[in-house]
């Protein structure tokens, strides 16, 4: 196996770690940083560095290395955090992300960004803690202490004793250390033959120790002193080896100092972690160990990583199971003999049905991920955008645990980001302006997600200025759009989604170029959803995105044309009616329109567009299904409505190709394939066919010419 096989795992993990890191950085309270959070950020950087080193991603490794060192100082409280430092950290995180992406695409990361961020981070290190971090091989924390360090007062449970063994050979020393272990907890022991120091914690007196020791060595060879915070002697840098397992620093110290001066002031393993550069007061120094040490065991993983392909395969198989089940169900219900002898079969069938549905639901939920994955990026977006615009914004998220299909979650992020930026830029006013209007200075932006029927409703609400209906109409006229004052608010607000439309008084860095909102709408429609705007002038705007829960299952309306069954997505179906002769009008060319409540809708006869034989050609004998696609309405002529049903969407392109007028296929209860129709595609197809003159004039439609209004 090649090492590159592990690359993907690393990329995935690193991405998750970076996301965690960002979240923690954003949540960090700069005035009173939570040590657990700082630790988490540090650990993330550390893990990425390790991985990057293993796979030879040297630029990423070096960047994380410097970053990690800085974070290490931060978590020990030596670096006072400020919000501008956090911003720099976020920037560093972004650059690491870019480097990661570059490596993923098998490119070299941007050297310029790398050099810059390294410089910036070094600069911070220099200015804030007076230390350079330019020693990639040896993290700064490993350097031994060279100046007095205030250590903690003896723990309540005993005094710390420094036992120095002078001129004791290795063999005896091991023995003595073992003896000392019997007496109390050894906190650390280090040194050489000339002077070996053991720090002992526990209720032992110096006499006791001497009494034990003198079986082996002479009393002169032992020097015992009490160590407490106040009495700590200046540290020479003897090699300090730490016993406490929870602080992974101070191992083999790099710079041995003259042993003659040695007198250790280290009483507690943790304080050894304070590097030489620490020149803060003792009070700070004493807090540090308590802040740095708590390290919970990594919480046990409650999830497993499974490839989407596997999940999709299971979903497919369950879909098959459902189809088989409905086939059986049909067969059983068709049985002539409904007598008692069949009742156990019937019972079994209904049990199977219930279990199969439950199974399907459970399996579908695997693909579902909470909206939190989308929402978690917005604190950053809002922070950055608000900062750029000089606005004060409070972001509130609701319904983070609402679940949505993974493929939708991935696709909703960009449109949502756009809407949020829009709200921040155009919606919420400047703080002073808000104050003048009697609103709180801080604008409120609410992101919410919740279930509504078979859909998910995502809202972006702000308490800004709202949409100015008049200005919108004015702008629409300038742009040559066909509008009237009588239009409903809803229709007017939809103008925002027209291509190239922007009402911003001036184009800003953030938004207002008029590109985007139409893309937002297209993206959302591409997901089978729709977007609505509600707004009250002066009070705010609410943008509502309604999305189906999943793309794998579709609520369909099955229809029959000729002998063939087709599925119309239920979300597109508005109503169905029996066309009356008087409602149909022929237009120039071969077009026919139908009048439905004062609206003329183009008629699309499915049997013509899809060349279905033996279909009902007389419109008055068929059924018109009014459907909506991309904001336009059509009347589809079909023979028969069969009913509503949920269908499993199957891709046609997997083994075949894209078919005009058809969006996908599904498998019906009898095992046969039915095509899912694409409304706008059908309309285009119908036009193309008419232009090519392929559709022979329908004799039935011909005599509507007589009914044409003069």
């Amino acid at each position, binding site marked *: 196996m090649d090492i590159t096989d592990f690359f993907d795992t690393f990329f995935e993990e690193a991405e998750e770690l970076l996301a965690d890191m960002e979240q923690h950085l954003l949540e960090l309270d700069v005035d009173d940083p939570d040590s657990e959070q700082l630790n988490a950020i540090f650990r993330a950087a550390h893990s990425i560095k390790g991985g990057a080193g293993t796979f030879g991603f040297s630029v990423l490794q070096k960047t994380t290395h410097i970053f990690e060192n800085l974070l290490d100082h931060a978590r020990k409280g030596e670096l006072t955090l400020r919000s501008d430092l956090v911003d720099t950290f976020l920037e560093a995180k972004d650059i690491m992300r870019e480097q990661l992406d570059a490596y993923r695409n098998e490119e070299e990361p941007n050297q310029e960004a790398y050099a810059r961020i390294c410089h910036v981070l070094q600069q911070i290190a220099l200015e804030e803690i007076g230390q350079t971090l330019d020693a990639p091989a040896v993290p700064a924390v490993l350097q031994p202490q060279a100046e007095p360090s205030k250590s903690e007062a003896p723990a309540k449970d005993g005094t710390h004793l420094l036992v120095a063994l002078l001129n004791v050979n290795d063999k005896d020393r091991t023995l003595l250390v073992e003896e000392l272990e019997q007496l109390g907890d050894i906190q650390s022991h280090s040194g050489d033959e000339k002077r070996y120091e053991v720090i002992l914690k526990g209720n032992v007196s110096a006499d006791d120790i001497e009494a034990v020791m003198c079986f082996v060595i002479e009393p002169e060879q032992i020097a015992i002193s009490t160590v407490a915070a106040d009495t700590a002697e200046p540290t020479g840098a003897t090699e300090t080896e730490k016993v406490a397992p929870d602080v992974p620093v101070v191992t083999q110290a790099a710079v041995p100092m003259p042993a003659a001066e040695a007198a250790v002031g280290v009483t507690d393993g943790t304080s050894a972690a304070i590097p030489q550069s620490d020149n803060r007061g003792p009070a700070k120094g004493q807090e540090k160990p308590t802040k740095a040490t708590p390290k919970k065991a990594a919480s046990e993983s409650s999830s497993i990583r499974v490839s989407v392909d596997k999940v999709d395969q299971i979903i*497919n*198989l369950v*879909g*098959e199971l459902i*189809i088989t089940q409905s086939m059986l169900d049909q067969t059983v219900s068709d049985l002539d003999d409904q007598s008692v002898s069949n009742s156990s079969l019937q019972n079994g069938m209904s049990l199977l049905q219930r279990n199969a549905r439950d199974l399907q639901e459970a399996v579908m939920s695997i693909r579902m991920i909470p909206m939190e994955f989308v929402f978690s990026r917005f604190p950053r977006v809002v922070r950055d955008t608000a900062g750029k615009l000089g606005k004060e914004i409070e972001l509130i998220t609701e319904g983070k645990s609402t679940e949505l299909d993974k493929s939708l979650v991935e696709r909703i992020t960009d449109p949502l980001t756009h809407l949020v930026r829009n709200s921040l830029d155009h919606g919420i006013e400047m703080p002073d302006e808000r104050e003048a209007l009697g609103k709180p200075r801080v604008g409120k932006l609410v992101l919410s997600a919740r279930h509504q029927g078979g859909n998910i409703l995502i809202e972006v609400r702000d308490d800004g200025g709202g949409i100015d209906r008049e200005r919108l109409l004015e702008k629409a006229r300038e742009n040559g759009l066909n509008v009237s004052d009588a239009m409903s608010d809803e229709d007017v607000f939809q103008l925002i989604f027209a291509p190239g439309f922007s009402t911003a008084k001036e184009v800003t860095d953030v938004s207002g170029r008029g590109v985007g909102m139409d893309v937002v709408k297209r993206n959302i429609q591409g997901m089978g959803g729709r977007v609505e705007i509600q707004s009250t002038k002066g009070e705010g705007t609410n943008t509502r995105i309604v999305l189906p829960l999943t793309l794998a299952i579709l609520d369909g309306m099955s229809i029959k044309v000729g002998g*063939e069954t087709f599925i119309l997505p239920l979300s597109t179906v508005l109503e169905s009616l029996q066309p009356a002769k008087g409602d149909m009008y022929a237009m120039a060319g071969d077009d026919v329109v139908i009048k439905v409540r004062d609206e003329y809708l183009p008629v699309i006869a499915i049997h013509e*567009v*899809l*060349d*279905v034989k033996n279909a009902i050609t007389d419109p008055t004998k068929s059924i018109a299904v009014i459907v909506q696609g991309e904001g336009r309405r059509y009347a589809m002529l079909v023979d028969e409505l069969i009913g509503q049903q949920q269908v499993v969407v*199957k*891709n*046609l*392109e*997997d*083994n*075949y*190709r*894209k*078919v*005009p*007028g*058809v969006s996908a*296929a599904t*498998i019906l209860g009898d*095992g*046969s*394939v*039915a*095509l899912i129709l694409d409304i706008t595609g059908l309309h285009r*197809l119908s036009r193309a066919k008419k232009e090519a003159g392929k559709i022979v004039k329908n004799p039935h439609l011909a005599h509507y010419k007589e009914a044409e209004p003069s």
Partner: protein
Amino acid sequence: MSQAANKAVLAAAEAENREFLVFSLGEEEYAIDILKVQEIRGYENVTRIANAPDFIKGVTNLRGVIVPIVDLRIKFHLENVEYGGQTVVIVVNVADRVVGIVVDGVSDVMTLTPEQIKPAPEFGVTLSSDFLSGLGSLDDRMLVLVDIDKLLTSEEMALVDSTSNS
């Protein structure tokens, strides 16, 4: 050439023996590489696809997978295209796709040595020799060896989107 070298050549030739699935279209016998064949099944329940070429009969449900069905008899302009209990669909795997081809019948599996495979002559408008890997001669039988990969991914079969058909 020494005898050892001769043996090596023979061994290599032995290794290059290929197995073919032989099927009939009208009176003619065709064969495709057996390794491309996934399964053989009956012709049933095919959903028509509108506005597709006539030789594309539609799509069918193969254990949850939507598979297009191509009638090679129509493609090769054979007469007497009938669908009955004997009509057979050979499901093949080409270019990561699953496609069913309708044939009149499947006869047997043949092993052909390289010597038995002759180059295909230039002929035919309906079946370009581009889509043939050769002609197999077996006693008095002649098998038309179809390069099913090339045939089904070709533009004229209209089975794949032209964009993805490089």
